[in-house]
C-alpha cells in the first residue's frame, strides 16, 4: 500500500474531539472538546497528570479505543482526511505506515517470541509489499540509524536478550521503518534510567529532524517536553487548558493550572527553606465527579463563585499577540500573571545535630545461582551490591542517595534496616554496631528508630486491612499505648500529623489515592517516633502536583521531629531542592559525596556531570551542557574491571596509562568533606565547567 497523496497543510487536525468510555453503569467522558493542530515537521507536546486523557487522545488518533471507548464528538483529520470515516482496511494501511506509535514499556511492546529482525521487517513488507531481502536491508539501515551496536546481531536476537534502552531503540526503529509522517510517543522514556532516557530523547529529536516526521509527544514531564517539542498543550481532567508555543506557555503562562504546575516542581532556585514548593491543594477529580463549570475551579487560587462554577463549559480563548496561544480560563484578563508567589512560608534552616548513624566500609555481596531454571548445579556468581560505603548522617539532616537502577541503593537500605546482614564493615547506630543483627534480633527501640517509606504507593499498604488497623498494628509492635483505646487515639493523632481526615481510619487502602496512601505510609513509619527514616523514592510514582505536597509533608515532620532522612532518589531536581548532603552511587560504589552545593557545582565526578546534564529541567532560562552517555549501565552481576564507570566515561582518555581499566580509583578528598572517586588529575577536575547555567533574568 502506498502513502496518501501529498498534502499541503497540517498533518494532524483534531477538532473539538470528545471521547468517552462506556461501562455498564454510566458514560465516563475521558476527553472533552479537545482541539490541536500539528504542522509538518512540528513536535507537539501533550502534558498532564495521570488520568487527564492524554493517552486517550493518542489512541483516538490511532482509532484504537477498544470495545468500550467511543468518539462521541468532533473529528480527527490526518492529512485532510477524517480518520473516523475510514474503513478498517484503510485504517490498517495508515497504521504503522503513515502514523506510528511508541509506548512506555519497551519490553511489553515487543513480541517476546519473535526475533527483533522479523518484527522490524514486517512493517515495510505489509505496507510496501517489498521483498524479504529489501526489508532486511531497510531494517539494517534503520537499526544503524538508531545507533545500536552490531545491527546484524541485534536483528537476530529476541527482545529479552536486549537491555531496556536497546529495546526502546528497537521500538523507535520499528516506528520509523516505513518513514511515517506522524509519530506518536506515549511516555517513551518513563521506564528508563535517567542517563539512558537522555540518550533516547536525543535520538528521537535527531531522527525527527532527519526523517522530517511530525511528532505528538505525550509526557508528564515538563522538562522533557521543553527539550523535545516546539509546541505544547497542557491537559487537565480531560480538557486542554492551555496551548501554545513552548516559549509562550513556559514564560507567559495564562492558565492557573499551568502556573500551579510550574510552582509545584523543583526548579533551580527553589529551596526548601527560602523558596519552598507550592503544592496544588485538593485532589484530581475522578472522571465522573467533575465539578460544574471550570474543572480546575475547586483547586484554583483565583476561583470566583458565581463565575467559575456555573454549569457551562469554559471556552478556549485566544491570547492576543502570541502565536496560536490559547487558554481555557474565564479570568485571563483579571489575573496578574506576574504576581510573586504569595503563599510561600519561609522557614529557618535547621542545623544538623550529632552524628547518629555511621557507616564504615560497609560491603554487601550476594551469591546468586548462575542459572535460574536449571540452577543449583553449584555454579554461583557473586554480586557486589555495595562496595565500601563510608559516611555519617547527623540528626535532622537530609542525606540524599542518588543513583540509577543497579547502583545498590536498595541493597544498602535493606542492610541498614536489618533485612540483610552486611558482608563486611560496620554500621553504627548511636555507636552501637547493628550491621550483623538481623531485624528479628534487634530490640524494639532500634527497630522503631530506623523506619522506611516505600516507593510504590499501590504496594505499600496491605490491601485487605483498614488504614487505621495498619497504623495501630505498628503502634502495637513498637509497644506504644497500653490499651487499644490508647493506640486508637495515637493513630488518629498520626493521621492529623500527615494531614489526612480522621475518617480515613476506617477506609480500605483501595479507597485512597496514591498521594493519600503515601501519607499513610509516612504515618506508619513515624508511628514509633523514628529517628532515621529511609525514604526510597517516596514521590517518584506520584503525580507532579501531589509530589510537592508529600515532599513538603515529609520535610515538615522531619523538622519537627529532628529526624535524619535518608532520601533515595534518581531525580536530581528534587534532591537539589531538599537535601543537605548528597551521595552519588554507581554500580555499588560511592562515586561522589559532599554537601548539595559541592556536588551540584564543579569539580564533578564524570558520572555526576552526566547525570546532571541528563535530568530535564522545565525552565527556559536554564542552559545545559550537552553530555550524552554511550551505552547502558553494566549489570551488577558482571561489572567492568577497574573503575565501574570507565565503560561510559567521556573523560577516560584524559587519564594516562589506561589506569581506569585496571584499578578502582581511590576515594579522594577535595574540599571540606567533598569526596570524589576518580583517577582524573586535580587540574582537570578543577577545569570542569558547570553543567547547568541559569541565565540572568
Amino acid at each position: 500500500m502506498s502513502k496518501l497523496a501529498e498534502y499541503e497543510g497540517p498533518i494532524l487536525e483534531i477538532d473539538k474531539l470528545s471521547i468517552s468510555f462506556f461501562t455498564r453503569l454510566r458514560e465516563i467522558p475521558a476527553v472533552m472538546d479537545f482541539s490541536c493542530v500539528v504542522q509538518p515537521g512540528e513536535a507537539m507536546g501533550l502534558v498532564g497528570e495521570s488520568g487527564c486523557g492524554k493517552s486517550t487522545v493518542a489512541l483516538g488518533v490511532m482509532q484504537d479505543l477498544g470495545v468500550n471507548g467511543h468518539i462521541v464528538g468532533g473529528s480527527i483529520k490526518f492529512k485532510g482526511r477524517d480518520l473516523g470515516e475510514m474503513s478498517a482496511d484503510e485504517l490498517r494501511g495508515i497504521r504503522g505506515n503513515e502514523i506510528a506509535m511508541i509506548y512506555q514499556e519497551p519490553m511489553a511492546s515487543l513480541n517476546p517470541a519473535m526475533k527483533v529482525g522479523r518484527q522490524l521487517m514486517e512493517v515495510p513488507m505489509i505496507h510496501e509489499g517489498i521483498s524479504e531481502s529489501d526489508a532486511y536491508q531497510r531494517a539494517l539501515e534503520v537499526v544503524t540509524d538508531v545507533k545500536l551496536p552490531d545491527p546484524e546481531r541485534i536483528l537476530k536476537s529476541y527482545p529479552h536478550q536486549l537491555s531496556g534502552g536497546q529495546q526502546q531503540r528497537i521500538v523507535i526503529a520499528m516506528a520509523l521503518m516505513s518513514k511515517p509522517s506522524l509519530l506518536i510517543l506515549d511516555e517513551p522514556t518513563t521506564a528508563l534510567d535517567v542517563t539512558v532516557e537522555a540518550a533516547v530523547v536525543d535520538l528521537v529529536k535527531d531522527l525527527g529532524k532527519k526523517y522530517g516526521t511530525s511528532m505528538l509527544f505525550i509526557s508528564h514531564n515538563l522538562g522533557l517536553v521543553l527539550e523535545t517539542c516546539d509546541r505544547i498543550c497542557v491537559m487537565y481532567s480531560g480538557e486542554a487548558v492551555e496551548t501554545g508555543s513552548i516559549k509562550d506557555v513556559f514564560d507567559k503562562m495564562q492558565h492557573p493550572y499551568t502556573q500551579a504546575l510550574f510552582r509545584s516542581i523543583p526548579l533551580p532556585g527553589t529551596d526548601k527553606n527560602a523558596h519552598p514548593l507550592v503544592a496544588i491543594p485538593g485532589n484530581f477529580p475522578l472522571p465522573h465527579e467533575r465539578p460544574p463549570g471550570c474543572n480546575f475551579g475547586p483547586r484554583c487560587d483565583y476561583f470566583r463563585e458565581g463565575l467559575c462554577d456555573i454549569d457551562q463549559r469554559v471556552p478556549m480563548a485566544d491570547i492576543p499577540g502570541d502565536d496560536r496561544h490559547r487558554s481555557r480560563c474565564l479570568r485571563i484578563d483579571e489575573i496578574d500573571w506576574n504576581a510573586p508567589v504569595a503563599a510561600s512560608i519561609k522557614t529557618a534552616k535547621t542545623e544538623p545535630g550529632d552524628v547518629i548513624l555511621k557507616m564504615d566500609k560497609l560491603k554487601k555481596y550476594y551469591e546468586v545461582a548462575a542459572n535460574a531454571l536449571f540452577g543449583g548445579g553449584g555454579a554461583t556468581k557473586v554480586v557486589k551490591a555495595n562496595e565500601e560505603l563510608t559516611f555519617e548522617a547527623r540528626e535532622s539532616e537530609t542525606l540524599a542517595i542518588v543513583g540509577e537502577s543497579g547502583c545498590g541503593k536498595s541493597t544498602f537500605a535493606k542492610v541498614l534496616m536489618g533485612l540483610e546482614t552486611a558482608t563486611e564493615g560496620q554500621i553504627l547506630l548511636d555507636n552501637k554496631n547493628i550491621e550483623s543483627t538481623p531485624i528479628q534480633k534487634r530490640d524494639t527501640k532500634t527497630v522503631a528508630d530506623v523506619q522506611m517509606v516505600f516507593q510504590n504507593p499501590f504496594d505499600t499498604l496491605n490491601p485487605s486491612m483498614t488504614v487505621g488497623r495498619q497504623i495501630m498494628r505498628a503502634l502495637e509492635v513498637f509497644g506504644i499505648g497500653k490499651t487499644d483505646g490508647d493506640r486508637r487515639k495515637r493513630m488518629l493523632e498520626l493521621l492529623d500529623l500527615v494531614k489526612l481526615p480522621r475518617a480515613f481510619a476506617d477506609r480500605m487502602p483501595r479507597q485512597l489515592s496514591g498521594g493519600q496512601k503515601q501519607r499513610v505510609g509516612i504515618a506508619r513509619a513515624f508511628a514509633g517516633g523514628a529517628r532515621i527514616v529511609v525514604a526510597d523514592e517516596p514521590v517518584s510514582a506520584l503525580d507532579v502536583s501531589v509530589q510537592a505536597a508529600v515532599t513538603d509533608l515529609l520535610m515538615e515532620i522531619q523538622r519537627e521531629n529532628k529526624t535524619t532522612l535518608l532520601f533515595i532518589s534518581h531525580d536530581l531536581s528534587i534532591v537539589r531542592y531538599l537535601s543537605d548532603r548528597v551521595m552519588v552511587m554507581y554500580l555499588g560504589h560511592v562515586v561522589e559525596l559532599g554537601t548539595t552545593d559541592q556536588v551540584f557545582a564543579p569539580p564533578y565526578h564524570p558520572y555526576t556531570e552526566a547525570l546532571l546534564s541528563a535530568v530535564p529541567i522545565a525552565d527556559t532560562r536554564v542552559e545545559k551542557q550537552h553530555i550524552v552517555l554511550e551505552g547502558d549501565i553494566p549489570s551488577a552481576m558482571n561489572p567492568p574491571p577497574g573503575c565501574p564507570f570507565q565503560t561510559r566515561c567521556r573523560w577516560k582518555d584524559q587519564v594516562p596509562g589506561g589506569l581506569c581499566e585496571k584499578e578502582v580509583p581511590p576515594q579522594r578528598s577535595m574540599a571540606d568533606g567533598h569526596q570524589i572517586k576518580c583517577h582524573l588529575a586535580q587540574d582537570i577536575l578543577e577545569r570542569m565547567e558547570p553543567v547547568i547555567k541559569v541565565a540572568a533574568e
Partner: protein
Amino acid sequence: MGLFILRRTGLMLLTCLCLTFVVFFLTNLYPNLEKLAKSQGNVRMTDAQVASWLENRGYDRPMPVKYGEWLGVVPGWTYQNQDGDTLGRCVSITRDAETAPRFCGVLQGWWGQSTVFKEPVASVVGDKLGLTGRLMFWVMLLMVPSALVLGVLAGMREGSTTDRTLSTFAITTTATPEYVSGVILIAVFTSSAVGLKWFKGTATSAMDNPTFENFFLPVLTIALYGMGYIARMTRASMAEVMTAQYVRTARLKGVSFPNIVMKHALRNALIAPFTVIMLQFPWLLNGVVIVETLFNYKGFGWTLVQAAGNNDIELLLGVSVVSVIVVLVTQLISDIGYVYLNPRISVT
C-alpha cells in the same frame, strides 16, 4: 542441560523408590496378606493355616528384607518344605533350586510373578501397556487438536458469542467425569431404550480388532473430560495474549487480524497449554482406569483394578513403577519443551 537431565533422573529414581516402598508397605500389611492367602488358597482357612501359607511363600519376613528382595539387593528367600523340595523366590523362575540365581529382583530384570494372572509381571504389564497405548494415542489425536482449536477460537475475541458458547461447552465437559459421560454416551448411543445403537457398549472386541464402532466411545469419553480443561487453559492464555501490549503494537503496525492471531499471538499463547497437555498424561490415567472398567477393555487400567482388588503385590508394584515413570517423564518433557517454546528462558 545434560546435568539437568541427570539430576532429574536421580530425582525420578528417588521418587520411584519412595513410592514403591509405600505400595510395598501397604500391600504387605497383615490384613492384606491374609486376604491374599484366603483368595489364593481357601476362603475358610484358619489363622494357623494362613500363617503357614504365608510362611511357605516367604511373606512372613520383615518388610525391609522383602523389599530388598524385590529390588534385588537382598538374596531371594528359600524354604524347604516337608517333602524336601526347595521353594524360593528365585526358584520359581527356573523351577530348579540348583540353577536358580541367588538374587532375583528388579535390578536383575525380574519383576516377579503375578498371582492373579499366573504370569510374569513384566509380560502382563507389557501386553496391557500396548493396548492402553493404542487407546491413549487416539485419545491424544482427538483431544489435543480439538481442544487447541476450541481454546484459540474462544480466546481470540474474549467475551464474544463464540467465546461464551465454547466456554460453556468446555466448562460442561470438565464438569463431567468419565463415569458420567461414559454412562450418558452408552445410554444414548448404544442402548436399545433410546434405539440409536450407533456404537457398541463394550470395547472388548477392540482389543484384537479396533474399529470405529467399538473404539470411538471409549476414546471420546476420555478425550471429552481432558479436552475442556486444555481448552479453558488455551482460552485463558490466548485471551491474555490478545490484550498484551505487543499485540496492540502489531495492530497499530497495520497487521491484519488473521495475521495477528497466527503470527503474533499463537506461539505465545501455546506456551502455557503445552505444559498443561503434558501434565494431562498422568491425569488421563484416572480416566483410563474408569473407561477400561466401564467398557471392559482389558488394558493397563483394567489390570490395575484387578491387581489392586486381589492384592497382587508384585503386579501392583510393577504397575505403580510404570505409572510413576510416565508421570515423571512427562513432567521432564514438559519442562524441557517449555524452555524451547519460550525463548525468554535460556538453557545454557
